[in-house]
């Protein structure tokens, strides 16, 4: 209600914002002063999450300088959308001209169609699963009727994993690997940052292992896990462990190095103060070291998660472990007329998920940054 009246009042003075800083009220010319704190925070949050284009929309709704806000909106939303439109157009035009042994390269519509069919497939598989469980309940009931002491085991659905299942498996695997990597890298990094001795001891191994490709780790990890992880009732699938550990080994390094740098670059004065005050090492760690190196630790973790996601797809492809990589490999092998479009769906999915993961980390990072500065 009030926003609309404000908008009307303000319209005749488009240059207000430019002069706002120097001039004292009239109130409409100083819109920022009016923004409540929660709104400022919301703006910040939207920018952090990557939805920055929402801000000019809100500002427009609140009746702020419309030309400026429209310009902002165009930059944040219009240009990206236009670029995507151009990309889609070029794709649909070019794809029709390339003939592969599996037929034409599918255009955007064909890919969308395959995405829908994968979703339909997922739902159909869920129905099959329901039927499977019904049959199982019945069979178990029959078994119990015949022999009341029969041992009944609940069996999970044995059908194929759908596309959605593969995505979830991949996410679960990457987070497990990432978590392990963080648990190893942050303490080690702190040690490196605090002690020059540890630092020079670990520097060389880190430099050597950092550039190792996941494809080189994978066979080693596979063989070692198969030898070490021998149980009759495994809690995790071997393939899950192998993929996770490979992710860990490859995504460890950015966090480790950044943590080391972060801790190493703490203000000397602060450390001296802690020495003068004779702080306990735990206090020093939690009140001093961690808070001041947190931004860099998070930068490292964000890089690590990105690396982990890339590594995971390669690991799944090579090791044939369940997940998106396996889906890509299977479709490559199938070589059916749908395969190309499905491969493209997979590429887009991997990209979008990677983007979302990065966004989540970025958001956390900027929230923490914000908190640290305060």
């Amino acid at each position, binding site marked *: 209600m009030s926003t609309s009246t404000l908008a009307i009042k303000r319209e005749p003075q488009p240059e207000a914002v430019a002069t706002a800083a120097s001039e004292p009220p009239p109130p409409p010319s100083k819109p920022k002063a009016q923004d409540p704190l929660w709104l400022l925070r919301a703006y910040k949050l939207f920018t952090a999450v990557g939805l920055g284009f929402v801000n000019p929309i809100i500002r427009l709704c609140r009746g702020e300088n419309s030309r400026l806000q429209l310009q902002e909106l165009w930059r944040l939303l219009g240009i990206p959308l236009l670029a995507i439109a151009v990309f889609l157009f070029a794709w649909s035009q070019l794809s029709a001209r390339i003939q592969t*042994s599996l037929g034409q390269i599918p255009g955007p519509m064909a890919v969308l169609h395959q995405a829908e069919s994968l979703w339909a497939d997922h739902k159909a598989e869920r129905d099959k699963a329901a039927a499977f469980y019904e*049959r199982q309940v019945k069979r178990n009931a029959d078994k119990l009727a015949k022999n009341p002491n029969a041992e009944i*085991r609940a069996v999970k659905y044995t059908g194929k994993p759908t596309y959605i299942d593969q995505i979830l498996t991949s996410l679960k695997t990457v987070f497990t690997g990432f978590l392990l990597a963080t648990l190893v890298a942050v303490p080690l990094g702190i040690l490196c940052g605090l002690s020059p001795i540890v630092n020079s001891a670990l520097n060389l191994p880190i430099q050597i292992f950092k550039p190792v490709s996941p494809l080189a780790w994978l066979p080693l990890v596979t063989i070692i896990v*198969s030898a070490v992880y021998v149980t009759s009732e495994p809690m995790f699938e071997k393939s899950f462990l192998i993929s996770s550990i490979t992710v860990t080994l490859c995504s460890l390094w950015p966090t480790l190095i950044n943590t080391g740098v972060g801790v190493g670059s703490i203000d000397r004065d602060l450390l001296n103060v802690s020495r003068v005050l004779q702080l306990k090492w735990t206090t020093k760690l939690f009140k001093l070291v961690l808070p001041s190196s947190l931004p860099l630790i998070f930068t490292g973790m964000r890089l690590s998660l990105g690396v982990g996601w890339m590594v995971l797809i390669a690991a799944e492809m090579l090791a044939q472990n369940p997940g998106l990589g396996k889906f890509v490999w299977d479709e490559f092998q*199938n*070589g*059916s007329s*749908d*395969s190309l479009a499905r491969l493209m769906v997979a590429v887009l999915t991997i990209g979008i998920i990677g983007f979302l993961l990065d966004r989540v980390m970025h958001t956390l990072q900027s929230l923490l940054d914000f908190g640290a500065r305060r």
Partner: protein
Amino acid sequence: MPNHSLKAALVALAVFAAGCVSAAELELEKEQLKLGFIKLTDMAPLAIAYEKGFFEDEGLYVTLEPQANWKVILDRVITGELDGAHMLAGQPLGATIGVGTKAEIVTSFSMDLNGNATTVSNEVWALMKPKLAVDAQGKPVHPIKADALKPAVDAFKAAGKPFRMAMVFPVSTHNYELRYWLAAGGLHPGFYSPSDVSGQIKADVFLSVTPPPQMPAALEAGTISGYCVGEPWNQQAIFKGVGVPVITDAEIWKNNPEKVFGVTRAWAEKHPNTHLALLKALIRAGMWLDANNGANRKEAAQILSRAEYVGADYRVIANSMTGTFEFGRGDKRSVPDFNVFFRYFATYPYYSDAVWYLTQMRRWGQIAEGQADQWYIDTAKKVYRTEPYLRAARMLIEEKKAKKEDFPFDTDGFRAPTKEFIDGIEYDGRKPNEYLQKLQIGLKQGQVVEGGNVVSKQGAT
């Protein structure tokens, strides 16, 4: 006394009851199983047993998982990640005697007969075609012998390029079929030796390993000039326009054994009843696939074309699964026995089939030293376990799901001697050494490959 006899009667009754129960419903040691397969049409018995509920009828909850290549499948069965798998007939034998990875693998179920073909690239086909005899309609006369390939191999040699062909695994049926075909046409496919396992010693044609589904892509990329593989990857070459199938394995050796269902010996000993239940389900799947003159084959091709099984297009799979085979674009011929899943006692694990593969391993040097006839037969009996198969068959007959004449109960495990090879040389599974002596190219008794040459070892028996 009366008490005593009553006890005896009760015991007898209990034993009888137990017998009945075990026939109707086995006491399963393990209900949840994961079985591996390679994306080939001859994995059909596994897909059919799953889709038609034969596994569930036996109380088995089976997950089927496609694998990248034969090496992965073997390793995963050995490590226990897979309970059992679709395997090449040579794999359990090779693993047991230690060609490649050593592990004790056994099989009680042969999955199919025939089902492979050899495809050459368009370039090679153009070099072969002018020399081929043609029939009244102008189509090449089959079977095409490997002599026809000679001009192409010579052309490659003259240009200083190696003539490369691919098969799917060093102990694969394809390797031995392709070698048999080449050698029968006077082309040397190369020896293996203990120090050089590339299998290219003295070769005219250089063979190497490529996983089945990647064959058409490798041919298209020009890495290889031809390959021997199972379906649908030969038909795929036609649909993609990258190559021309020239010969099926049934023309090289009629009704040759192809894939088996393999498990480790330890697994089979630990889960005897589960193994029986699996065999029952697989036998029923084989029967279904060959029932009523192949009436179910179209449905089978539909099932196999799903992305989780073979995943190629239906028309590509149906091309070979429904009694036909396309040689060259438009040259579709009737080949009713291209895939045999149950007829001719296809599912029974004959010792003679195992011995043939062992003779070929010896012929090409994978078995470095000559062996006595008895060794071949003993090895075959160690790996090919017929007893569980026959038990499963008897149970199916009792349950009225099969008939007695479906199974070779009176065989001693050796098929009758046959001359149905492309070169007409007779094979008798009881006399492997005599057979090896008859094959022109290949190691003979007493010969070994040393330092790239064949040498006779004095005093070897």
